[in-house]
């Protein structure tokens, strides 16, 4: 037996080497092809994406100014030390956190609810689907202009509705406590369609047999949703929530036009703060430190979120 084994292994040894030489030549040719084909995409990416990323991180350690004749000098962690004491920045950070958590959560709830409705045999589903596309397609600047009209304190339809019910006339975007909730609603409006369509696609992949089996076993609609639909949708939900959170934390256009961060900085999101610091105050080194902090924060939040859900998934 051992002899036979040996003989066999000897016989098979030369064969793979010949093949692997042939394969490695093929692999080399394939790699060269791949490089040639990828170059057109690689050049702009390296110049305008990878290099800026590296510069962006390093700018934070300099005293770079927007308008300056001399090259920026290295200042170590000076910017970060000063940033720690910058209450206004952390205030903006907090507003950013409230905004992105609220918008992301509401997008999830409303998006999922609408997706569930669209996944039934109700009428007007087609119209709703088509209408749902509009907020998604619209330029953020137009979205903001449109909602300014809705919220208009003088002849906006929202105030008309409230006053006709006997309520007070409200200056939605100018009120210190109402401005943030008001812009959060706009954020939900703008991002909900994308959530809805993704969840709808996810729902259509939930195995019908599984739902049917649960129904035969006597599970009610709610129980079927919690025990069959939700677990099946989980990967979709996790991806959409993660992406939405990042996008929302970095939103800029809608708020810039809607309130410009006002009133009194009540809707000043981190990105608006960075924009002002860099392009109004000209402190680009400090602004870069802010973006670094934002990115590190997002990476930490995201890893914690993904890790937690991943662990849960493994346990289950």
């Amino acid at each position, binding site marked *: 037996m051992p002899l036979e084994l040996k003989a066999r292994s000897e016989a098979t040894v030369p064969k793979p080497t010949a093949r692997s030489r042939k394969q490695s030549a093929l692999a080399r040719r394939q790699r060269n092809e791949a490089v040639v084909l990828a170059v057109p995409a690689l050049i702009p990416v390296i110049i305008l994406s990878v290099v800026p990323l590296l510069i962006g991180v390093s700018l934070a350690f300099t005293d770079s100014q927007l308008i300056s004749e001399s090259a920026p000098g290295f200042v170590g962690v000076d910017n970060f030390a000063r940033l720690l004491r910058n209450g206004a920045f952390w205030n903006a950070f907090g507003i950013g956190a409230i905004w992105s958590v609220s918008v992301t959560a509401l997008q999830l709830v409303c998006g999922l609810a609408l997706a569930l409705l669209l996944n039934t045999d109700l009428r007007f589903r087609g119209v709703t689907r088509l209408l749902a596309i509009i907020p998604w397609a619209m330029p953020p600047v137009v979205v*903001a202009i449109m909602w300014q009209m809705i919220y208009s304190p003088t002849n906006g339809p929202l105030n008309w509705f409230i006053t006709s019910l006997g309520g007070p006339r409200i200056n939605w975007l100018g009120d210190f406590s109402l401005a943030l909730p008001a812009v959060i609603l706009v954020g939900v409006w703008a991002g909900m369609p994308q959530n809805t369509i993704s969840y709808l*696609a996810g729902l259509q992949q939930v195995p019908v047999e599984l739902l049917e089996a649960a129904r035969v076993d006597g599970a009610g609609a709610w129980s079927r949703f919690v025990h069959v639909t939700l677990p099946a949708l989980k990967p979709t939900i996790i991806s959409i929530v993660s992406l939405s959170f990042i996008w929302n934390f970095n939103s800029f256009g809608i708020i810039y036009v809607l309130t410009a961060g006002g009133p009194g900085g009540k809707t000043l999101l981190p990105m608006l703060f960075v924009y002002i610091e860099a392009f109004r105050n000209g402190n680009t080194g400090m602004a870069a430190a802010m973006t670094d902090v934002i990115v590190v924060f997002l990476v930490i939040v995201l890893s914690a979120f993904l890790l937690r859900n991943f662990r849960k998934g493994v346990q289950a």
Partner: protein
Amino acid sequence: MRNQPVLIRTLQYVFLAGFLLFLGFPFLWLISTAFKSPAELNSLAVNLVPLQPTLDNFTAAFEAQGLVRAAWNSVFVSVVTTVIVVIISVPGAYVLARYRGKIRAMGSGWVLVSQIVPVALFILPLFFILRMVGLVDSLGGVIAVYVVYTLPFSLWMLQGYVAAIPVDVEEAGATDGATKLQVLTRIVFPLLQPGLIATAIFTFVAAYNEFFFALVLLQSPENFTLSVSLSTFSNGEGLSEIGPLAAGALIASIPSVIFFAILQRRLTGGLLAGAVKG
């Protein structure tokens, strides 16, 4: 027991109507405002259907400072961006879909990272790099930024369509003696057309709607894109000349809305390919 389904059905329709109102009403209001006369806009009366519909606001918008110019800039920037992105995405997406190894791993990694890293981190260095080569305040600079900014998604979307083409088709071409270039241009490219159209529309809409980079990079009004131009008409505190602004905003949103309506059925696959796998 028989009443329960009816009750649920009714509730479902109530919620659906609520969502319809929430999603659709703002756009209806924009349309309505665009057709209202100044007198009606200045009054406190609130009507969804304009009492005396007028096209004056559209005339005013077309005559407004630089809005037509801005529209042209937006279309120019978006079309050039789309053409460049599609041309460089085809071979790139082919590599992502067909080859194994480091390039593919790095490419996919970069697509993923670019979806996660906020644009905030890019904007300052991009501004300095473009200023160094004299491309700040020029449409060329904006196009360069948009190409890189829309490329990851476009690559990801397109590689899904490439992966859907059976390898056998290509191998049949190769055994018939076609070179790699011939296989790509004569076999892969024609089969990719539906995917190319979808990718092109996504790229166009992304570039057309973009605001932040344009705001930072463009300084002279004659270079403004539509978004930047419209944003100057509306300051944080309120609206100047609401009628023409509504008309301008309505016209500005037409290309994206039409393109997305065309793509309606494909939005699902496109987004999921980018969002879920990415």
